[in-house]
């Protein structure tokens, strides 16, 4: 019997659960992540903690550590840490619909081994029977005057530094933006002993409150997530940190770094109420307005996307069916790239995707349970989007000289002029003339904002684009999903072994540093041969 080979990109909550379920279904799995450790954004921990010395900064990581060791030590799993997927190459006829022809999923192009952005990594290719994409999301941040000052960082950055390195960004911190993640970040900072001055939720009570308080039975289904939020809120109360609704930071000021912020009251549409400005001295400001999915790989594969209604989250997201299939045969998607609902929902989606990608039996009762739980996760995502929409009035706090594209320092005035001028307004033309989105980050940060401003300034739709009508100007379409050095591009890639062999046994060149970590060792939780059933990866003790 030839086993199906499932390649999973991303080892966050979604990807790890996908790997676990695919192994349980009997497949051979290659799990790929550019980080050194599995865990993604959620299960980030200081290096000594992952080595088995639990630190104090993480709650209930036991279930995660169990799942991690089950996957990493499984004889049918090859774990490729420090490996980036930098391109997906479609195998069908170039002009046909994505995936047409062979029915095989795209070929995976990898950059293996070595420290982040180091030179001399090895280029490899991988052909699998199915791909699971679980590349997660990054913070979305709306621009405001002074947001480019050092000391202003994303809420996620503050969280990553405190969880991954025990580093607190400051001692007089303001956390601002929208969404429940702000609470989690403030709680982590407080727990680590940092001083948090206030947490500012831009949403006003009617919107935030109505959507969080309605249909409480739905929330009960997301007990882990709800309890986690309650825990974060309790930490704020304990430390007497004010949580203010309908207020935000409209300017950051300082000489060479942030020294104070100006906050102001907002109306429900996020227009600024004049005369409510307050100046708050800070040494750090953390901002987040929800998350943007990392769509480079789904777009490279040709997956259809769905747009979200204006203001409702930082879509578009990948379209998936009831079993996490994308529109491209053999390509599955799970986690934040399909909608932002938090780690527990990402895990369940991953399990469904992994099981199905591995050709697991559709009829097993466990899958029904998982799918129900996945649907509850989706309902939670919709609730989040409704409770924390981005108000249409936010450009009101921009000034002509406010930087919108951080890389190129393109300011709001320049964009207004370009979008007001019909000849320049076409996305590609505007991009070249204003340079917004052409810098090193390749529009990862400003892309959704520029698209939104363009639409608002009357220069046409935001134009996110789908596979069906490739617009070329979607802010997420990039030829390289990850940076690559010219020398690395010039070198010929080495294919991983035939589907019968796992890469580490193929005898071909091994990615430096990966081979020793891929050797199976230690106990295996489930029989490596007999397919079992997918287990519900959500664990009530596994929080935040």
């Amino acid at each position: 019997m030839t086993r199906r080979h499932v390649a999973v990109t991303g080892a966050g909550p979604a990807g790890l659960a996908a790997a676990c379920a695919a192994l349980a279904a009997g497949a051979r799995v290659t799990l790929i992540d550019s980080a050194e450790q599995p865990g993604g954004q959620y299960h980030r921990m200081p290096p000594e903690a992952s080595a088995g010395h639990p630190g104090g900064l993480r709650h209930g990581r036991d279930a995660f550590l169990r799942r991690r060791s089950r996957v990493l030590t499984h004889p049918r799993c090859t774990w490729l840490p420090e490996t980036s997927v930098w391109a997906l190459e479609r195998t069908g006829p170039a002009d046909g619909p994505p995936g047409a022809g062979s029915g095989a999923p795209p070929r995976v192009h990898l950059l293996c081994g070595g420290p982040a952005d180091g030179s001399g990594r090895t280029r490899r290719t991988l052909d699998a029977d199915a791909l699971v994409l679980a590349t997660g999301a990054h913070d979305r941040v709306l621009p405001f005057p002074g947001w480019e000052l050092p000391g202003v960082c994303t809420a996620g950055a503050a969280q990553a530094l405190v969880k991954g390195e025990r580093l607190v960004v400051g001692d007089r911190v303001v956390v601002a933006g929208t969404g429940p993640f702000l609470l989690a970040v403030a709680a982590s900072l407080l727990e680590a002993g940092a001083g948090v001055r206030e947490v500012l939720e831009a949403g006003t009570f009617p919107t935030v409150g109505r959507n969080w308080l309605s249909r409480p039975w739905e929330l009960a289904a997301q007990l882990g997530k709800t309890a986690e939020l309650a825990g974060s809120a309790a930490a704020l109360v304990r430390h007497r940190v004010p949580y203010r609704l309908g207020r935000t930071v409209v300017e950051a000021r300082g000489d060479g770094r942030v020294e104070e912020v100006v906050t102001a009251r907002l109306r429900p549409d996020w227009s600024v109420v004049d005369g409510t400005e307050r100046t708050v001295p800070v040494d750090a400001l953390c901002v987040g307005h929800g998350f943007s999915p990392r769509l480079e790989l789904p777009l490279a594969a040709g997956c259809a996307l769905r747009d979200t209604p204006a203001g409702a989250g930082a879509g578009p997201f990948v379209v998936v069916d009831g079993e996490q299939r994308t529109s491209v045969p053999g390509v599955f998607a799970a986690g934040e790239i399909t909608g932002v609902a938090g780690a527990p929902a990402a895990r369940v989606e991953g399990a469904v995707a992994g099981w199905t990608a591995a050709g697991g039996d559709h009829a097993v009762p466990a899958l029904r349970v998982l799918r129900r739980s996945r649907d509850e996760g989706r309902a939670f995502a919709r609730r989040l989007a409704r409770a924390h929409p981005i108000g249409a009035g936010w450009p009101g706090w921009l000034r002509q000289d406010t930087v919108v594209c951080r890389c190129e320092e393109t300011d709001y005035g320049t964009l207004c002029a370009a979008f007001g001028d019909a000849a320049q307004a076409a996305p590609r033309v505007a991009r070249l003339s204003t340079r917004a989105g052409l810098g090193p980050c390749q529009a990862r940060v400003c892309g959704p904002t520029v698209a939104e401003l363009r639409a608002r300034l009357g220069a046409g739709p935001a134009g996110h684009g789908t596979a069906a009508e490739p617009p070329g100007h979607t802010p997420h379409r990039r030829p390289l999903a990850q940076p690559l050095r010219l020398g690395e591009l010039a070198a010929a890639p080495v294919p991983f072994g035939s589907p019968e062999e796992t890469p580490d046994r193929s005898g071909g060149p091994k990615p430096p540093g990966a081979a020793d970590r891929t050797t199976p060792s230690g106990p295996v939780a489930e029989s490596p041969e007999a397919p079992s059933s997918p287990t519900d990866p959500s664990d009530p003790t596994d929080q935040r």
Partner: protein
Amino acid sequence: MSPRRLPARGTADGRGERPLRITVDGRPVDGVAGQTVAGVLLAAGRTAWRRGPSGAARGVFCGIGVCFDCLVTVNGDRDVRACLRRAADGDEVRTQSRTRPGTGGSRSADAGADGYPEHGEATG
């Protein structure tokens, strides 16, 4: 106050942590194993080490390799994201910038103004 690092729980005096030393533009900076280059710099009180095209200071923004605001040169490799790169004892870190000479200077389509192609742009 600036960013600061807390010692590992149960090792309040930092025992059990493996110290390391890197140089930043030739000056030694101490850290511990497991920190990223950005973490070492931040913990040493440095919030900015790169400049935008206008010359304005930049530091860590996204913390997860998305914004490219934290780029440094490590052991001769340009354009290394400091927030992703684990610091290794003896690493020679040099700061780098994307400033253009003068203001509003000419910029070519796909290279930084100082003549180097920033990562991903040259081929992208």
